[in-house]
Structure formats: C-alpha cells, structure tokens
C-alpha cells in the first residue's frame, strides 16, 4: 500500500482530480461498450419477435 | 470499310491515330476534353482558392507580420479545401450517365484508367492551384524566400491530395449525399500532407534545409501513385456493384 490514509489516497498527492477523472472516463467507456450492445440485443429480439408474429398469419 | 471514309478524308488519319490510344491516353484525353467543354468546372476551384485566402486578412487580421506567419498554412489549407471541393465530381458524372459501368466492363486494366482520370483531375485543379499560389503568397505577405518552397511543396503535395481524394470519391460515388461524407473520409488522410507541406514552406521562410520535407512529400506521392489506383479501382467496383 503506497498511501498512509484514505484521504491521501483520494488526494493522490495533489493530482487527485486528474487521476480520478481518467479512471472515471475509463469506467464510462467500458460500461457503455458493454451496456450498449446488450440493450441493442434486447431491442433486436423485441423487433424480430414482433415481426415473426406479424408474418405468421400469412404463412 | 471504304464506304465510311470518303466524306472525311482528313479524318482517317485521326481514326488510326485514335486506334493506338491505350486506355490511359484515351481516358486522359477524354477528361481533359470534358472539362475544356465545361469550363466552369475548371475555374470554380481556382476562384474558391482565391476567395478562401482573401477571408483570412479580412476575418483575422490584415497585419502583414501576422499574415506572413500564417501564410504557409493558409495557402496549404486553401489548396486542400479547393481540391476536396472538386473531388466529388470526379466519378459522379461518369456514374450517373453510365460511362463508369462501361469503364468497369472494359477489358483494359482499371488501374491505368483510374490513374489517367486522377492525372487529369490534378492537371485541372492541383496544377493551376500551384501556379496560382505565388499570387496568394504575395497577397498574404509571404516572404520571397518562401515562394520556391511553396511552389515545390504544392507541386509534390497536390497530386497526393488528388490521389487520396479519389479514393473517397470512389467510395461515395454510389451515394446520393456524397459531398460531406467525402470530406469526413478523406480529411484525416490529408493531414500528414498538410503538415509536411506547410512545414516545408515554413522551413523555406526561415531558411532551414528543405530536403527532408520534400523527400517525405515525394515518398507520400510515390506511395500514393502506386497504391491509390488499386484502392480506387476496388472501391469503384464495390460502389457500382451496390
């Protein structure tokens, strides 16, 4: 552990803003890249299911 | 075939001359003739080039010292935008009237035809821009030392702009709204040319050795010259197919 206290950990030797901002952006990028396709998948399944229901009576 | 010739005896010579036209010369001659007939296509990029350069003294500052500082960049950016504007029409009219299909279906190597078309485009935009550049340099108080650098860098750089731009034009030829998209695709690839082109002019102004800059511009040109036609050809086949 390279920090004495939690406050020091948050402060990052005066660079807290920079360090935490970087990690926050990284988190946002990673989460959007996972959540976005998952939501898209849900949407595709709903769309295709309704399309199949629509086309069923025809055949 | 004697029944065809009598009316125009003068023509028979031209016909046989025409027969030896390969795909390269055939396409080059045709494109030059086309823009000779539609002179506005020839002049518009040049007027645009002049106008953009006029905007800077009016919009930013007419101070000669400042203008001299930014002149290399301004002239290069203006040349780049003028080339970009003229790019969209490179294959579009051919696509619309069906001649592009005929080019793709001809047994001649597409590589040659494409190279000829790009060469024609450069002769009609890049070359006049280069010749006009010293005038802009004077308008923007570019020191006289920088003129040779300006002309040589544009001479080496504008063909690369035409070659790379043609890739974008070929990729977007089948799309109705190709104009903005083409800039989006091509501008990132123009950036290195712009950097070294304007750096060469800057270097010429400050009296630095220019060999390195010209060598890089030359390297980009020769790489573009041999590789770009392959990409343009592939892109055209894809666009027409879709």
């Amino acid at each position, binding site marked *: 552990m390279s920090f004495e206290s939690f406050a020091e950990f948050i402060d990052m030797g005066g660079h807290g803003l920079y360090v935490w901002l970087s990690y926050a952006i990284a988190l946002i990028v990673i989460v959007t890249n996972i959540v976005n396709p998952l939501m898209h998948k849900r949407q595709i399944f709903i769309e295709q299911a309704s399309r199949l229901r629509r086309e069923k009576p025809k055949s | 075939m004697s029944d065809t010739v009598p009316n125009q005896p003068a023509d028979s010579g031209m016909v046989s001359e025409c027969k030896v036209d390969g795909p390269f010369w055939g396409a080059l001659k045709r494109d030059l003739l086309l823009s000779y007939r539609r002179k506005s296509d020839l002049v518009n990029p040049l007027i645009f080039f002049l106008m953009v350069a006029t905007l800077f003294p009016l919009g930013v500052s007419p101070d000669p010292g400042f203008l001299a500082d930014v002149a290399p960049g301004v002239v290069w950016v203006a040349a780049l935008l003028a080339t970009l504007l003229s790019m969209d029409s490179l294959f579009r009219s051919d696509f619309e009237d069906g001649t592009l299909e005929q080019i793709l279906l001809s047994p001649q190597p597409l590589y040659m035809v494409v190279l000829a078309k790009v060469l024609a485009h450069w002769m009609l935009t890049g070359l006049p821009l280069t010749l006009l550049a010293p005038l802009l340099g004077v308008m923007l108080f570019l020191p006289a030392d920088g003129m040779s650098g300006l002309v040589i860098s544009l001479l080496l750089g504008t063909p690369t702009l035409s070659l790379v731009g043609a890739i974008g034009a070929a990729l977007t030829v089948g799309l109705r709204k190709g104009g903005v998209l083409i800039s989006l695709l091509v501008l990132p690839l123009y950036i290195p040319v712009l950097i070294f082109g304007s750096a060469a002019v800057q270097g010429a102004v400050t009296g*630095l050795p220019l060999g390195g800059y010209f060598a*890089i511009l030359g390297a980009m040109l*020769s790489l573009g010259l041999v590789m770009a036609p*392959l990409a343009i050809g592939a892109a055209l086949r894809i666009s027409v197919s879709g």
Partner: protein
Amino acid sequence: MNPKRKQRLIIVLFIVFGAATAVGLSMYALNQNINLFYSPTDIVDNKAPEGTRIRAGGMVVEGSVIRDTQSLNVMFDMTDYANSVTVSFTGILPDLFREGQGIVAQGAMNSDGVFEAVEVLAKHDENYMPPEVAEALEKAGKMPDQMRAKGAE
C-alpha cells in the same frame, strides 16, 4: 509477349518501382532528421530567425534557474551540452520542470540573445521509477538522465 501480360507486367513494375522510391525517399528524410524544434546550438549559430515564433528544445542547466520573488518570472539556461541559451518565461511551470530536465519552449529570440518563451513544456522519458529507487540510483550516479548527459558530453 502477349499484350495483356505485358500490360500487367508494366503495372507490377510500376508498383514495385513506386514503392521502392517511397522507401528510399523516406529513408533519406529520416536521415535528414527533421527537428520540430531548434537546439541551443542552432540558435547560437544564428540558424534560428530572430523575432519569429519558434520552438526551442534542450536540457535545463543545473543551478541556473532564477525565480523572481515579486512575479511569476523565471529565467534559466537551456543547453544541448554544446551551447546554451538563456530563456525567460512568465507563468506557471509544469510539475516536471526541474533542473536537468528536458524541455521544449515556444517563443522568440529577442535582440539581447534571450529566448522569450510564451509556453514551456516539460519533456519526460520512458524511464519511470519509484522515488526510493530514484534516490538509490541518484546516489550511485546511475540516473538515466545523467547517463545520457555523460554520453552526450
């Protein structure tokens, strides 16, 4: 040779020739060593124009930094281990700015031969290490910067 083959051969030769030219020219360009900034030697030799905005780069000479107590003005010498130039700057210096550190300054030479910087950027290298290690290396005289400096001398 049949004309089709001949055409194809010409194209292939053209591509090979063009690629070779491109490689040759870029090798030449790399040997020319395009610098994005002037070294103190360039400036001392009057290669850099006076009055126009240029970038200059070099190492901060140990013990040359003079901070003005009244203002943010800083004066220091910048060297490439052959020649050195005095730099004057007003403003907040980056964290990495310290003696012996490589920097790039943007500004212009004035008539007194002082480089008036508008912006000072600190250049850092790929050698990262914990402070304790740095201290130990410092004691042993094996800091990368010092090693490089010795090499340059």
